């Protein structure tokens, strides 16, 4: 069939199952925008207010659907504005396809108006990228791009299409299959390695599972639980692994690492076996690498061969899809009772409480707001966070009931992720509750995406944990820079008025007893809500592994907080 390049692109996207595109038009992609009406409602376009927002929205959409998210921008500044969003998807292995218009072919390489070498710029932050110079290549390249983005270790792919290619006519040919001789992601683990892993697990007296994003990406929820229960091994989840394992499960231990549970950091240091599943032993997890898990052998289950042996040397590696690897492994693992290990873990938990905060305050504690969000939503929502202290508390206190319901920027730590990612999540899950737990700093980086919230009637609830600071920066400055608070205090606008300016309900809470009623009001309101929670300004997030320190050197909760836990324990015992 003959069509224009723009039509070919949208036809190919539709065939790939794309229903939603987040983007912003401009001179170099107008032929595509001109063609959108023909494809409506098969493909719906959401107009972002900044291309970074479009990319994060596609990212959020992809994380909760497992489908490839699509974002679109014009050449030059439009394309470069996508870069943060693409890098974020790259670091967190999120499948997105970014489509940029580019200057017409005769002008490429001539510093034309709004020309940027976006394929050059994005080489280090994409799995692959394409500059399409022949209109007839469009369907094949779209197919390849989607295949690359979602298979193996997923990630972003960028397609750059000059405007004249979009306008040119060509023959639409849809290839039956993708042929990429240089791309063969592993899927099935080596059977010998599986057998050896099962043996190591059985022999281990003090094993721990470290489950990461790979569990969620490969949807290995059931298999992970089966492994944990069948082999009788406790489960720790990394930041991005949270919601890959039920938080209320008796084998669940929470998050490790820089702001992880103190007991986990100590347990990792004592374990004789770590089973890393779909995680990459990131420095935020390991602390000082040379002192990480000194007594443990490591089993690494990972789809990206380059991650195996990158940071730690595993005794056995199962290289393949996490879910398939676990299916194979689960057939061989055997139960073993480990009463001493479990008793010891219980003792570590008792000795080093990591979840506690004073509740009888007049001020609002940020932990309290987050805790109450989980409480009052019954864990039934999707929870999206920004980056900073509120993110770490959201991870620590996580009590979501849905698999894959914590959406957060891990690898890149991108402030401003929260607002647009929540938009993407809500677009993907129209009937579901979406809560964005925002920093007052991060919210201001992308709050213009409230424009999408208002325009498309998305009922996202935004809880701004307003501590009047770049809280995490303030924490580092107060702990490691002699309290020299340079550029961490924020002079904030009136967030309620900002919400109202977008036609969104704005609420505010300034005292502790207002928190619950305000959350209830937000829950009752059918549409979007922005809540300004004015919280204690100088609350620090603990436990904490100081930068460069080992997990053994974790700083626990403040003494007064631990006292609170002790008193509560005593009350319980005396009952």
């Amino acid at each position, binding site marked *: 069939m003959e069509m224009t390049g723009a039509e070919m692109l949208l036809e190919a996207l539709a065939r790939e199952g794309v229903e939603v595109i987040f983007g912003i038009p401009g001179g170099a992609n107008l032929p595509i925008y001109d063609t959108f009406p023909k494809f409506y409602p098969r493909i719906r376009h959401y107009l972002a207010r900044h291309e970074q927002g479009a990319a994060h929205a596609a990212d959020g959409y992809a994380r909760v659907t497992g489908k490839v998210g699509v974002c679109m921008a014009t050449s030059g500044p439009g394309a470069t504005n996508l870069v943060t969003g693409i890098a974020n998807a790259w670091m967190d292995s999120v499948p997105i396809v970014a489509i940029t218009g580019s200057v017409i072919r005769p002008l490429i390489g001539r510093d034309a108006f709004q020309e940027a070498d976006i394929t050059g710029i994005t*080489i*280090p932050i994409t799995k692959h990228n394409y500059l399409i110079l022949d209109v007839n290549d469009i369907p094949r390249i779209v197919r390849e791009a989607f*295949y690359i983005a979602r298979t193996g270790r997923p990630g972003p792919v960028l397609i750059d299409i000059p405007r004249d290619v979009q306008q040119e006519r060509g023959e639409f040919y849809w290839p039956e299959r*993708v042929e990429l001789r*240089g791309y*063969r992601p592993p899927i099935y683990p080596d059977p010998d390695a599986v057998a050896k892993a099962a043996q190591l697990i059985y022999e281990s007296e003090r094993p721990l599972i470290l489950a990461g994003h790979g569990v969620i990406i*490969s949807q290995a929820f059931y298999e992970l639980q089966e492994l944990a229960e069948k082999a009788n091994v406790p489960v720790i989840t990394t930041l991005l692994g949270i919601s890959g394992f039920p938080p209320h499960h008796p084998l669940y231990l929470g998050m490790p690492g820089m702001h992880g549970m103190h007991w986990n950091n100590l347990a990792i240091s004592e374990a004789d076996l770590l089973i890393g599943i779909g995680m990459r032993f990131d420095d935020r997890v390991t602390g000082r690498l040379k002192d990480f898990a000194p007594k443990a052998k490591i089993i690494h289950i990972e789809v990206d*061969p*380059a991650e195996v042996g*990158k940071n730690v040397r595993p005794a056995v590696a199962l290289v393949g899809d996490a879910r398939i690897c676990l299916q194979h492994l689960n057939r061989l693992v055997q139960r073993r009772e480990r009463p001493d290990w479990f008793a010891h873990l219980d003792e570590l938990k008792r000795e080093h409480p990591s979840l506690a905060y004073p509740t009888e305050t007049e001020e609002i504690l940020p932990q309290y707001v987050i805790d109450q969000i989980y409480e009052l939503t019954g864990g039934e929502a999707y929870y999206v966070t920004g980056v900073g202290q509120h993110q770490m508390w959201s991870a620590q206190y996580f009590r979501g009931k849905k698999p894959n319901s914590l959406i957060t920027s891990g690898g890149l730590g991108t402030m401003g992720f929260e607002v647009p990612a929540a938009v993407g999540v809500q677009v993907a899950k129209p009937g579901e509750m979406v809560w964005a737990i925002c920093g007052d700093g991060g919210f201001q980086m992308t709050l213009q995406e409230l424009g999408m919230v208002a325009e498309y009637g998305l009922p996202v609830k935004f809880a701004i944990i307003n501590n009047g600071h770049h809280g995490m920066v303030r924490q580092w400055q107060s702990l490691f820079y002699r309290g020299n608070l340079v550029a961490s205090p924020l002079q904030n606008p009136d967030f309620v008025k900002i919400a109202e300016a977008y036609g969104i309900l704005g609420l505010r809470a300034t005292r502790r007893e207002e928190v619950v009623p305000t959350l209830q009001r937000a829950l009752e309101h059918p549409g979007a809500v922005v809540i300004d929670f004015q919280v204690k300004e100088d609350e620090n997030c603990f436990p904490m592994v100081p930068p460069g320190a080992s997990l053994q050197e974790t700083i626990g909760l403040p003494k007064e907080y631990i006292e609170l836990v002790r008193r509560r324990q005593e009350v319980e015992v005396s009952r």
Partner: protein
Amino acid sequence: MKDQRRYHTIIALVEDRPGVLNRIASKWRQRGFNIESLAVGHSETPGLSRMTLVVDASHDADQVVKQLDKLIDVVDIRDVSNEDIVAREMALIKVRCDAGNRSHIIEIVDIFRANIIDVSPESVIVEVTGDEGKIDAMFELLKDYGVIEMVRTGRVAMLRGAAASHPIEEEGYERYPGQETW
């Protein structure tokens, strides 16, 4: 002279497409791999180029191979340092000389089984092929006459015997259920 054991020889089959070198260079730069030399040219198969990389083994050569293998344009890549290979490099060396000492240079050239490929009243260009040690040795001898400049290709390497360095697997894509699995 370089200690050969400190270097890894890696050979790769890559798509012959614009931007491939850029992608490879980007990985080196980002990951801080020190590339000693890189030689690239067409392979026996149209559309594919073959590369020989020599990397400083103070790096984890395994990471170099795996990171480069992640590139879609890298069809196959392997570290052949511990295999039975032949490895050669070519150099062109422009040496200052005149009628008086030209015969001395020719003697050296003959001993090394090198060639003189250009002669002018004040210089000759010597072409020499061999392993890096031979080229280094020759350079040392010619230095005394005044080397104007030298250009080297970097190492190219190949397995000995009839084995192909990159047996292309025909099944490729089919081995991976792909679409359905994910």
